[in-house]
């Protein structure tokens, strides 16, 4: 019986992020030591984990060696086959964030944006040479520049220390990933306007052809559900508050509905739930519980205070599941397009 093969990055920020994510999803990895490149997920049977260089993971998927993987979107789109079987199931795992940017020397005051770069490429062409761009993303860079009507350039394939390429002279400019831009600045480079080719982060990707096999298709569902449930939960927070109905001039908790329905911040995911508070304080007290978007927390607290809310507490959610799993539905739909599940 085929087991699901799950490819994870072997090192770096994507390795740490993957380990943390899977642990938080209840899918902790069991690996005997760091020099062993295989592992298991004890809480789910039927899964073999393999550790690979992240740049190799798209190829492992396209060659049907891996069924599922976590990979940076930059590596994925640079390396995946255009007509291959791999598909992004969840594109925002929240770690490994970086931008793929075009950067030129600081002193090129005449090159501020992509249009200036196009002009420069023509000018260099007239002078008998092409703009040289050092990058380890030749495919993404070429397509991006061609799509922006920049045709006269040469890609210089480079894999490390790219930032120094213009200074030592083997390229005129670079295209590389950056998180904060500090390394670029330290190497006297500046990111040009509209020159962000791609904003990348870690993603869960799957192989349509191999996942279509019945026995591993059922194994992949809990992985997607748990990761998606955890990622959903990170966007929300649970808020509880005690309110005095008496002070609000209301006779029953249901009367609160009219007050809350006019306030979208207090509506939360599906409207608050309530329970009675047993207290020695005078009047009728209830406890409200809301699930709200995390970026609405402080406005929500303010609104609750305005209603006379006290003892406001918050707690994180572990998992949040919607009616359907978006990632799983995407997989099912894509598989149905290429043919029936075996």
């Amino acid at each position: 019986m085929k087991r699901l093969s799950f490819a994870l990055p072997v090192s770096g920020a994507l390795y740490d992020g993957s380990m943390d994510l899977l642990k938080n999803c209840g899918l902790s990895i069991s690996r005997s030591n760091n020099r062993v490149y295989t592992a298991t997920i004890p809480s789910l049977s039927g899964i073999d984990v393999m550790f690979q260089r992240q740049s190799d993971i798209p190829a492992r998927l396209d060659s049907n060696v891996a069924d599922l993987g976590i990979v940076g979107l930059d590596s994925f789109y640079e390396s995946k086959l255009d007509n291959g079987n791999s598909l992004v199931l969840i594109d925002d795992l929240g770690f490994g964030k970086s931008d793929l940017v075009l950067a030129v020397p600081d002193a090129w005051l005449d090159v501020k944006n992509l249009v200036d770069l196009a002009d420069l490429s023509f000018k260099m062409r007239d002078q008998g040479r092409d703009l040289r761009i050092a990058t380890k993303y030749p495919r993404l860079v070429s397509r991006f520049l061609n799509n922006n009507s920049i045709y006269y350039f040469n890609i210089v394939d480079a894999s490390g220390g790219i930032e120094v390429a213009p200074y030592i002279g083997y390229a005129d400019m670079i295209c590389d990933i950056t998180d904060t831009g500090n390394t670029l600045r330290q190497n006297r480079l500046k990111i040009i306007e509209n020159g962000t080719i791609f904003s990348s982060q870690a993603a869960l990707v799957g192989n349509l052809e191999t996942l279509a096999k019945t026995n591993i298709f059922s194994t992949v569902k809990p992985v997607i559900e748990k990761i998606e449930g955890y990622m959903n939960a990170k966007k929300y927070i649970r808020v509880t508050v005690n309110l005095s109905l008496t002070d609000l001039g209301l006779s029953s908790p249901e009367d609160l509905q009219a007050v809350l329905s006019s306030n979208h911040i207090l509506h939360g995911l599906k409207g608050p739930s309530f329970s009675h508070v047993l207290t020695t304080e005078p009047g009728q007290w209830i406890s409200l519980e809301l699930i709200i978007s995390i970026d609405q927390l402080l406005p929500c607290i303010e609104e609750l205070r305005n209603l006379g809310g006290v003892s406001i507490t918050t707690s994180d959610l572990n998992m949040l599941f919607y009616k359907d799993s978006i990632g799983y539905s995407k997989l099912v739909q894509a598989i149905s397009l290429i043919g029936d599940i075996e």
Partner: protein
Amino acid sequence: MNKLNLNKVLGFKDKYSEEISVLNDLNSKFFKFTEKWGYTQISPPIIEKTDLFSNKISSSLTSNIYYFTDPSGQEVSLRPDFTSSIIRMIFENNENLPLNEIRYSYSGEIYRYNNISNKNYISQNGVEFIGNDSLTSDIEITALAILFSKEIVGNELLVSVGHVGIISDVLNYFKLSDRESIFILQNLDLISKDNNLDFIINKAKDFGLYFKNDLINLQNKSFSNNEYSRMLDFAFSNDSNFSQTREKDSIIEGLANKYEKNTTVEIFSDCINLISKLINIDDNLEESVSKANKILSKIPVKNNLSDFYKIVSSLKNYEIDLSKIKINFGLVREWGYYSGFVFNLYNKNLLEKNNFGGGGRYNSLGNSINNNDSFPATGFAIDNEKLTKNIKLKNNNNLFNKIVIFLKNQNDYDLAIKTSIDERKKGSIVTLESKFSSINELEEWSKNNDIFEIIYFEKSELIRRKI
């Protein structure tokens, strides 16, 4: 262990006998035809150094080239066109340039990744005429392309002709920048339709073009070159290598150009209006040239227009029916590559855009590859598969009888071999078959496979059965 996926690479094709036979027949016709015009056959390697193609001597986009590192570590590419290789051959094998006229013909596949059409190769026949800058070479190439295509397509052949030089002269007259010109050349379809000028201007701005009017508020930011120089020295005083791979003067020139924009929206609009009128001309040669002459009355493009007239009108000397030639001043083929007279070949079953071939003059090639600007060239290429689609070419195999010798009994083997040798000497195509269980079964199969005759043996006696 996973089963290996050994399907062919998407965008390529398995060819079988019938198609190969048709293409071989086409190639044979092509070389015989072009040989009579003095073209000698050459065959450059399928792989060249990547730099040859990434140097953009053709219009292939960097993202479309198949490139890889060979086992020696050399960066190489599958050829995306023949012309680059041919120019390279000439530079590499001839010390004294320019040479006399060179006429080459070629045949083979070129490779360009195309994610939209999902066809990543083109089977081509073509010619190059190098070293002649006169109209006679334009006329010769155009006539050769038309007459050969007519041999294959017959009276359904249609041709459209244009001249890149005419549009280039218009763009130069209005002093448009490279990017402004490219926007216009890339959007001739849009301009040819009755589109609102504001719509086109807005599209140009989305493309990143800006005009003098946009810079009115920035005029005060303009400085002299000396001031720019002092600013750079001051800002980067602690770094002697601040300009890195560029000269300081190049940066200063770039800064100065940013604030010295000559093109106004009005100038740009005038240019678009004029080009729109020009490319919408749809008439016979005399009327088209006459109308173009009026439209271009203020613009010094008379030489190119009169050259255009001379080339097209001279085609009748080759007994070419000018009524089958559509005048299209918007035809530029691959912009940035062609520089003069251009043409497309198509037939009634194909739209002009889906032409099966074409060509024209591309004088800037030598300059692109070797800074050699005295390298005039013209040529054409034909997409063999498009050309032969829906066209019944003579299949040479049909000229010969196909005979099957049925080996029912291994004892007849020696006799079968001797018979096959005799029959092949007579010109037949002979195969030996031993898999069929009976002569009747073979006869049924033969009826569907163009077999002329079955030969078999009964008690060592040769028996023939016509199908």
